[in-house]
Structure formats: structure tokens, C-alpha cells
């Protein structure tokens, strides 16, 4: 009987996807539904009441939220600018036959991704400390520049944040592009060479278009990762508060309201708005790129 059940052609596929389905429902669908419900509630220990749109009203008058939104957005845009072209370039370089010891460079570039961000963040924080004895201030001091208060100003604060992001993610994105490059047939380059194409033309006409699926994937996850950034800022500023909220992110604000201030209703509203923003941007982006519902190439 049981055997028959498992060998049933109709049931088997569902059995295969069941583990995924359960995890998806318990850890994604349920929390998401719960977030939507809670965003209309005032959630306090032992008592929960419906407050209608009050949380949203608060949100749209909340300067700190908009500051956080701006920060997350700026961070996302800047990471896209830095973390797509450069890793692509590095991947092409490593993939090139002229490259010496490609394995060494691959490993070295990937190392930061497996380093604990807590450790790295702490080291960056100390290196960019505002005292004159910190590593970076000693370096700029060699050029006769006064000690910089790195982590206390918007510009320099973001610079450090982006530096950590580049340090950490360049290798990962490079790996994505490398695997994309490996799937481009060698013959295409050969025939292009025969037709007299130079390296740049080959890159523009062959590599770029054929890397498009990889690029779209990297773009999509980078948009999400940029908007959802939390840990780097949390560690660099040794907690969730930076002076003038210079690097407070949406998720940081969600954490502040929900966990630190125990206001889960309001935090759910923040989370919901983040979800809507990230979804909208990605849907538009995928649509433009033709991955979703657009014309198939």
C-alpha cells in the first residue's frame, strides 16, 4: 500500500517538492502574511489591537525613515555601479589565457566572502577610527592631511561602507561572471578572430550579450542585497546608531523599531514598504531586461 503510494507517478513529484514547499510556507509565506497583518496592528506584549492605517501615517511623516530609505537607495545604486562592471572585468581578465596563476587570484578574491563580517567590520572600524593613531589616518597623515573623522561624516562614512561592500562582494560577483564566461563557446571567439575582430569588439559583441543572463541575475540579487543591507553598517558603527543616521538603512530602522523598541507593528509596516519597493524595482528591471513577460530572445 505504502509502496504503491510512493511509486505512484502522480504523487511522486509532489513528494519531491514537499520539503521545499514546507520550508517555503513556514519560513516565507507565513511570516509574510503575518507581517501584512501586523502592519495594521499595535503589537504589544499581551495585547494587540487594530489601528488601521495609523502605522502607515506615522511612516510617511517619519523623517528618519526617509533618511534610511535614501541611504539604502544610495547604497544600492552605488554598489550596482561598483559591483557589476568591475567584477565582470576581473572575470574576463582571469578567464584570459594571458593570465598567470588564475587559481591564486580566484581564491584571493573570494577569500573575503568567507571571512566573518563581524571580524572584518571590527577591523575596518578600527582602521578607520577617528583618532590620529588609526591606520587610515596615519596613511593620510603621510600626505600631510589632518586626521579624518571617517565614520562620523556622511561622505567618508559611505566611502567606508562601500569599501567594505567591494572588498566583500567583488569576488563573489566575479565568480558568477566566471561561470557565465565558461559557458560561452570558444568557437565564437575563434571565428570572430578570423573575421578580424579585436579584443574590445569581441568583448562588446560576444561576451557582453552572452553574459546577459548572468548579469541580470547579479543585478537582481544586488538590488535586493543593496536595499536589505544591515550587517555592515551595524558592525562598522558598533550598533545600530550612526551619528545623524548617516548609514542607517531600512532594515536597520526596522530592527531599531521592532527589536530595540519592541514596536513590532510599526516595524512590520517598515518591512512591508521595503518589500514593496524592492519588488517594484526588480519587476521593472526584469521587465526591461526582457526576462519577465517581455519578448524572448
Amino acid at each position, binding site marked *: 500500500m505504502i509502496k504503491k503510494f510512493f511509486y505512484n507517478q502522480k504523487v511522486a513529484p509532489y513528494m519531491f517538492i514537499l520539503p521545499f514547499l514546507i520550508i517555503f510556507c513556514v519560513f516565507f509565506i507565513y511570516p509574510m502574511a503575518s507581517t501584512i497583518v501586523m502592519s495594521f496592528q499595535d503589537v*504589544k*506584549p*499581551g*495585547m494587540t489591537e487594530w489601528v488601521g492605517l*495609523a*502605522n502607515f*501615517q*506615522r511612516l510617511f*511623516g*517619519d*523623517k*528618519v525613515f526617509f533618511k534610511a530609505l535614501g541611504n539604502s537607495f544610495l547604497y544600492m545604486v552605488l554598489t550596482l555601479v561598483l559591483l557589476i562592471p568591475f567584477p565582470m572585468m576581473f572575470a574576463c581578465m582571469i578567464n584570459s589565457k594571458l593570465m598567470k*596563476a588564475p*587559481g*591564486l587570484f580566484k*581564491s584571493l578574491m573570494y*577569500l573575503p566572502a*568567507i*571571512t*566573518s563580517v*563581524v*571580524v572584518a567590520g*571590527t577591523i575596518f572600524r578600527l582602521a578607520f*577610527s*577617528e*583618532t590620529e593613531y588609526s591606520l587610515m589616518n596615519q596613511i593620510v597623515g603621510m600626505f600631510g592631511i589632518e586626521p579624518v573623522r571617517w565614520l*562620523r561624516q556622511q561622505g567618508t562614512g559611505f566611502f567606508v561602507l562601500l569599501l567594505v561592500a567591494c572588498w566583500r562582494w567583488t569576488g563573489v560577483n566575479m565568480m558568477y561572471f566566471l561561470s557565465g564566461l565558461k559557458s560561452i563557446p570558444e568557437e565564437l571567439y575563434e571565428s570572430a578572430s578570423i573575421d578580424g575582430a579585436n579584443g574590445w569588439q569581441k568583448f562588446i559583441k560576444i561576451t557582453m550579450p552572452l553574459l546577459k543572463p548572468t548579469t541580470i541575475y547579479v543585478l537582481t540579487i544586488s538590488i535586493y542585497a543593496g536595499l536589505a543591507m544591515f550587517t555592515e553598517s551595524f558592525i562598522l558603527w*558598533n*550598533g*545600530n*546608531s*550612526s*551619528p*545623524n*543616521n548617516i548609514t*542607517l538603512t531600512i532594515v536597520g530602522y526596522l530592527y*531599531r523599531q521592532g*527589536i*530595540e*523598541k*519592541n514596536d*513590532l507593528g*510599526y516595524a512590520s509596516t517598515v518591512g512591508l514598504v521595503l518589500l514593496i519597493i524592492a519588488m517594484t524595482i526588480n519587476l521593472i528591471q526584469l521587465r526591461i531586461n526582457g526576462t519577465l513577460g517581455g519578448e524572448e530572445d
Partner: protein
Amino acid sequence: MRLRKLLSGLIAATILLSAFAGCNSGTPSSSDTGDTDSETSVSTPADDTSEEDGAEEGTTAADATPLELWTFQEVHRSFYETMAEKWNEANPDKAIDLTVSVQPFDDMHNKLTIALQSGEGAPDMCDVEINRFPTYLEGEPQFMDLTSYVDPYRDDIVAARLEVYSKDGVNYGIPTHVGATVAFYDTSILNEAGVDYKEIKTWDDYKEAGLKVVEATGKAMGAAETDRTFIYQAMLAAQDADMTDENGDPALDSEASIKALSTIQELVEAGVDQTIPGGSVDAEEGYGAINAGGYATIISPLWYMSRYPAYMESIEAGRIGIAPIPVFDEADYGVSYGGGGTGTVVTVQSENPELAGEWLCWAKLSEEGNRDIWNVLGFDPCNISLWEDEELTTDESNQFISFFIDNPFDVLNTIKDDIRTIKSTYAVPTIDDIMTNVVLPDIIENGVPAEEAAVAAQEQAVNELGL
């Protein structure tokens, strides 16, 4: 081939290292948790051994009731363990088997929030920092009513300190110290400028002395902190004002608040107070700057005493003087306020709330417990009758009594009659956030006029709290 082997070895080593380092970051680090308002104190390596001791001692009493306590302060553990031992000796019939778990500041509070919110996983007892306390009192407090356990000790304890951890007349948290705010003066800097700290009574005196110090030594008279609000609060308390109104709602744009912020800004603009690395005198970078002799005055609750021997090796005994804080009106000199603090609670999830409540109140409120709060922790005990107990106050073997020019208790006794309170209401966590993240950086570093900053802060607080 060899290269590949080497590389994979290297990667494996990195993974291992970072994994261990990750663990490490989970262990308590007392001062670098970003918490500036707690009465964090010295943590010595010797404390690390006490965990084992505690465990062993716990198992000796076979029918001891197990109790779990969370704290974010390493030194609190030794205090609690000492008190558990003494309790078990005196009350073998009600012995407890105390497990103290020390966790990083934010982690511990956030874990407690989640445990209380979800109704599972909270300890029997927990230390809660004063600025975090009101968040837990929202809705139905998930803490036990400790009023009846406090009653036997109530007359000896500073009432205001019990009040800050109460709601609707019910005591939920047991205080650790008074936290009377005082001024610490570095005489090696002041003498160079010919300033006598005993003459500084008002903020005008302070500014005048500061100008002399800056001119003569090039050093700062005081630290303009962006990360702590003690000076702002002390200035409010001295004007008999508060950060919140009688309903507990924010009152950041009050006249008194604007006056306090303007004074802070004035001192910065005159060059008397200067920014401090780390934004706080109670952070690693700040200790370094003070240790290097860069700041003549530190205004802080009395528990800051312990930072000198612990973190500032270059500052020798007999160099730092303690005095009441400067005030606006000379007639008010001697006014102080209780700053910072930790309220220890019994959670509703405790299986033995009666025993936990009884032990906790005995440990932290009894005369015996208060002696150890001074001896072990170096905090000004809430039982102020002890402030005049000569056995305690003249004990030269105590490191704090011998370290400072002035006996800490002499200073405490001069301000004793007027130690005011800044209320701890539901709005305080939000206010604290706005003050340290926006207002103080704005007026100290960005030159935003104090009044404008105060009005904007009030607006933000009102909106954020959904008023």
C-alpha cells in the same frame, strides 16, 4: 599542484579562523557594546573563573532551586554569585542554584524582547538597562510585581531609584545604584592653568576656567559627547525640568531643554568643550584620549570612578578630584541627578517567582547586599544610610577611596539631599535615540542652532511615537 594544496589549506584556515572569531564576538565585551548609559564596569580576567566556581557550588546543594539570570555586565556576575553563596549559607532551606549568563548588551536585551514577546525562553531574572526598561513595560508588563518583596527594605532605599523601574505604583525592577552625577577633574591639567576645581560652581565659572585651561595648555576643559546624554540630563535636572512632561510625553522643545542645549553648544563654540573620539567618555577610543591627558573634566555618574583604574593606566592615584557638577544658578550648587542604571527583574516566565523575588530583593536591597554593591562593584549604593557608615566610607583598602583626591562619600554626602530624577517613561528610548543620533551631533558638530535642533527633535519624537 603544490600551489593548489597551499591554497586550499589557506582557505580552510581562514574559514576556521573566522568561525572561531565569530564565536568570540559572542562573548561579553563590556565596554565596546555601544552601550554608554549602563553602569558598565571593570571586567577582570579573574572573573572568568567564577563561572566554574558557580557551577560547582550550585551542585553541592542537592535540593537547591535552579534560577537563571541574564546580565550584560561581567562584574555583575561576580556580585550575584557572591550574594547567592551568602544566601545559601544563611538560608539552607531555601537554597538556590544560580546560573548567571553574561551576554553582549544589545544581544541580551533583544533576546529578552523576543523571549517575552513569544512567551518562551526568558530567564527567571534579568538585568535591564534603564533606557531600555520602558519598552518592556508597554502593554502588559511581562515582569513580576515585586512590590511586596521590596517592602521590607523600602525605608532604607532612595525612593526615586525604585520609581524609575515602576509603572502605576508597582515595582518591577530592582535598582543597582544611585548613579549620582558628579564632575571628575584632572588636576594635572587644571594646575597648569592655575585653576582650582573647588571654585567651579556654575557653568559660567566652568567656561571661564575652561578658557584659561585652553589658553594655558591647549587641552580641552571637557568632552562634548555626542553619544551620551548625561550632561544634558544633568542640566535639565538642575533646572527642575525633564525630557518628558507630566504625561510622560516628550518635551524636548521646552525652555529648559533649549537652555541646556544652548549651553552645551556655547561651550563647544568657545572651544572649552571639545569632541571626543568615539563620541563618549565611556568608550574605548574615549578612554585613550582621556588617558593621554586631553580632557580636564569628565561629567558622569559616580560609577565612572571604576574606569580610571581599569582603562586609564597613565592616570595615577591622587590626580583626579571629584566635586558636585556645575549648575546654572550658584544657589543650586550641590544639586545632582541619578544617571544611568540597571533594574533587575523577575520575568513572568519564571517557575519560581517567589523565591527569585525574595532572593533578588535581599541581594540588591539589603544592607549586606548594598555593602557588596560598593565593595565589589564600586557603585554608590541605594541604601544611603551606608553613605555615612564609617566602616565603609573610610576604608582605605578600598581602591576607589584611595585613588581619588576627594573621598567619593564626602562628595555624595554634600549632594545627598538633592539628587533629582529624570523620569523613565515610554518615550525615553525614542528620545535617547534622537538625542544621540541627531540632536547632539547636530549642535556639537554641524552647528545647527540649539533651538532649531530642539524643535526638530520634538517633532520627530512626537511623530515616531505616533502621538
